[in-house]
Every structure is written in structure tokens, then in C-alpha cells.
């Protein structure tokens, strides 16, 4: 499975990875992020549903275990091959030139940041060069966005619901499209295997 996915990535190499997670995010990201190779080669943008009125500790939380550096996304900056988290209470979007944009538009699925907002903008801006990853959660956010990435010709991976702390979000996405399903650690290993093929 891991090698099949790595070969699929080599055939259509992604230039951007977008990730969405909600309830159970810390566990799922705790498996995905440490499995990433140091030379990930492309930016990874992550939306996690977090309470709006707190400072996000996510970049600091995962920094020690992740070989790729983690930071909070900033408006109008060009991302490089690092891991970026959406700031609490802001939507994160991708512009057509690949730069990051923030907004305080209305919450979507009661969430700001919203996974759909990130995924849909990635589908529009980067299209088939997108790898969308949807992890554990109790929301329906991300299902439509992941479908859009699929329609645009991108790669779409969903955490297998039985490995998720909360399977509602993965199931909502799988109800729309038959995405690739696997556990978060294997996703990281597949990305590592792809980079190996690259090297």
C-alpha cells in the first residue's frame, strides 16, 4: 500500500499538501507528523479546529517530534517546504501564485479556521498538484473540500475511520468519494517513500 501510494505520488507529484483535523487531531497528527521525512520537499498546510480565543500551541507542540519545522501561517507569504498551521479564528487560504492568505469571513461548519475553506482554495489554486489529507474529527468540515480536490485531479487520503479517535469526519468524506484510506503513520511513511524515489 505504502509503495503503491509512493509510486502514485511520483507519477503526479504534489506541490502542496493540505491537512484537516478536528476531534482527535492531536493523536492523528502525533502519528503523521513524526513519520514525515526531513526533506518533505513541499509545503504542508494544516487546519485544526481550535477554540478561537486561545493562542495556538500547535506549532510548538509538534516541533520536537517533527523533522520538518512547524510554524503558524502568515498572510501574503510564500510557503516553503515546512509545516504551517492556520492561526486560531482565521481561515487559511491559498492564492493562485501559491502564497498564503488569511480571512475572518464567517465560520464554515461552525469553524474558523475551516477545512473546506483551505481545501477548496487549494483545489482552485493548485488543482491536481494538491494532496489533501483528512484526519479524525466529529464534524462534516472537509468532506466537500476533499471532493473538490479529487475533482481537480489531486490526490486524496482519508484516515481509515476505524483508526480515528472520532470517525465522523473521515466517514463524511468517504460518503462523497471513494478516497484512499489509511492510518496517519502510514501516510507519513508513504510520503517518506515518495521522497526516497525522488532522491
Amino acid at each position, binding site marked *: 500500500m505504502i509503495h503503491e501510494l509512493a509510486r502514485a505520488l511520483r507519477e503526479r507529484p504534489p506541490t502542496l499538501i493540505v491537512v484537516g483535523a478536528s476531534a482527535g487531531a492531536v493523536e492523528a497528527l502525533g502519528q503523521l507528523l513524526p513519520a514525515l521525512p526531513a526533506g518533505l520537499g513541499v509545503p504542508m498546510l494544516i487546519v485544526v479546529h481550535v477554540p478561537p*480565543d486561545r493562542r495556538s500551541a500547535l506549532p510548538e507542540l509538534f516541533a520536537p517530534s517533527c523533522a520538518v519545522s512547524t510554524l503558524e501561517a502568515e498572510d*501574503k507569504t510564500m510557503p516553503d517546504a515546512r509545516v504551517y498551521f492556520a492561526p486560531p479564528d482565521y481561515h487559511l487560504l491559498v492564492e*493562485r501564485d501559491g502564497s498564503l492568505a488569511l480571512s475572518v469571513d464567517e465560520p464554515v461548519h461552525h469553524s474558523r479556521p475551516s477545512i473546506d475553506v483551505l481545501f477548496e482554495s487549494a483545489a482552485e489554486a493548485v488543482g491536481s498538484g494538491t494532496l489533501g489529507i483528512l484526519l479524525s474529527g466529529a464534524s462534516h468540515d472537509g468532506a466537500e473540500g476533499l471532493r473538490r480536490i479529487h475533482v481537480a485531479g489531486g490526490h486524496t487520503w482519508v484516515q481509515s475511520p476505524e483508526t480515528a479517535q472520532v470517525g465522523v469526519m473521515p466517514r463524511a468524506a468517504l460518503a462523497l468519494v471513494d478516497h484512499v484510506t489509511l492510518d496517519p503513520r502510514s501516510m507519513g511513511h508513504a510520503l517518506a517513500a515518495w521522497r526516497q524515489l525522488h532522491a
Partner: protein
Amino acid sequence: MTAPGVADDHVVDLEIELLLEAIWRRYSYDFRHYARASMRRRVLGAMRRLHLARVSLLQDGILRDPALFTQLLTQLSVPVSDFFRDPPYFQALRQQVLPLLATYPSLKVWVAGCSTGEEVYSLAILLEELGLLDRTLIYATDINPEALRTAEAAVYPQARVQGFSRNYQASGGSASLGDYYTAAYDRVVFDRRLRNRVTFSDHSLATDAVFAEVQLVSCRNVLIYFDRQLQERAIELFHDSLVPRGFLGIGSRESLHGYKSAGALELVSRESRIYRRLT
């Protein structure tokens, strides 16, 4: 092979570009340098609400129907804010900025992109508590006349004001909130003594010029909606509106780093994103 949907996406981009050009030529509202990803979401959202299948149909509609354009304008403008959004910002104004400004015999403050006024009244309360409101004039500007009317009325749903208390306390507020508004049924109206010190007017950061000299500009979560070119214009406008050593406050995730026009502004507090004009 072109993936399905990609060609469509490019056509939609083109349609949006044409729509913004049409709005500019017909109504003189300039959205052409708004950041495109958010603008696209808003345009597509407006289309869905109006049950239109294509952006070009929206263009056709607004060209001939000013009432439809008014509806669209609200959906394209900067969204509503909260009272005392980002308490650390208001805390920094209270502790670091306003005590310095208190030495001026009279004060002018500009809230740029005030939307429906939440931030205007938050600032007015702050000024009142520091004993400065009576000698302050607040200019509150926006491009959206409907938002300005709402701001001027100072009437808000009770439910929206509830979060206000928590933010207000977190920003260092010590008074009782009942002092600032009157509740009636499910609404609250802010007191006349706050509203009396505010002048609401139509002003566009994209097309209008400096209109006053002020000691403080507060413009938060507006720049994120602009592309870099328009951001440069707005920052220059803020700089030129400020008195020497005047202050500029922006959103907690906005930055002036790397902007040409920001060269004459220094960062006072990174945490609260407050800048100060050098000379």
C-alpha cells in the same frame, strides 16, 4: 490531459476579474486589488444565495440593477467584527498607547474599515475610561453604506454582546458594562455619549486620499483582504494620516514586514501589532 474542473476554474477566475472590472466601471467601487482567494469565495457565495449559475450572470444582473449591486456590495465588504476582538490589542492601547496620547489637548482617531462598528464602540469605551473621550473625535470609515448605517445606529443583538463582557474584562476593563448600553428585549443600544464622539463616513482605502491628521489609526483585519499593491497604498495612506509619532494598530495576524511604505513606521509591540510613525 487536463484534469476535469481545472479549465472551469480558470474560466471562473476570468469571470471574477470581469465582474470586478464591471463593478469599478459602473459603480466606482474598486475591488480589483482585493486578495483573490477570499474574493472568489464571497462571489461564489453571493451567486449561490441569488441562485445564479454563473458569475457572468451576476455581472449581467448588477450592471442593470443597482439594488442587486447594493446587495452584492454587503457580501463583498469586510465582515463584521466583535467587541474587543483580541483583548491584548485593547490592553496595549489602554496601557501603552493612550497614556502617551493623553498629552494632546485634543485627539483624533481613525477606525478604517469599521464595518458595523463593534471596534468603534470598543475604542470609545476605552477612551471614556481613560477620561479622553470628551476631547476625542473618532472618524469611522467604510465603503459599505449599509454597514455604516448599522454602525451609526449602535444597535446590536443581545446575543452578540455577551462575548463582549469576557473580552472586555480580558482587555483590562474594570467598569460595569451596563454603564455603556441600554438593553431592550433582545437588543442593546450603545449610549449617545459614545456615539456623539464618532463621525461615520464613506471612505475607500483603494481610491480615496488622506482626509484628516490623526494620532491613532486602527485598521484591523482589513489588510488581509487586499493584495500587496493595495496593501502598500493603504499603509502609505495610514502613514500620511498620522501625526509624527502617531500610532497604527493592525490585526493580530497582520504584519507590515517587507512593505515599502512601512519603512517610516516602527514596531512598538509585536504581540499586539502596534506600530508608530518615526517622524
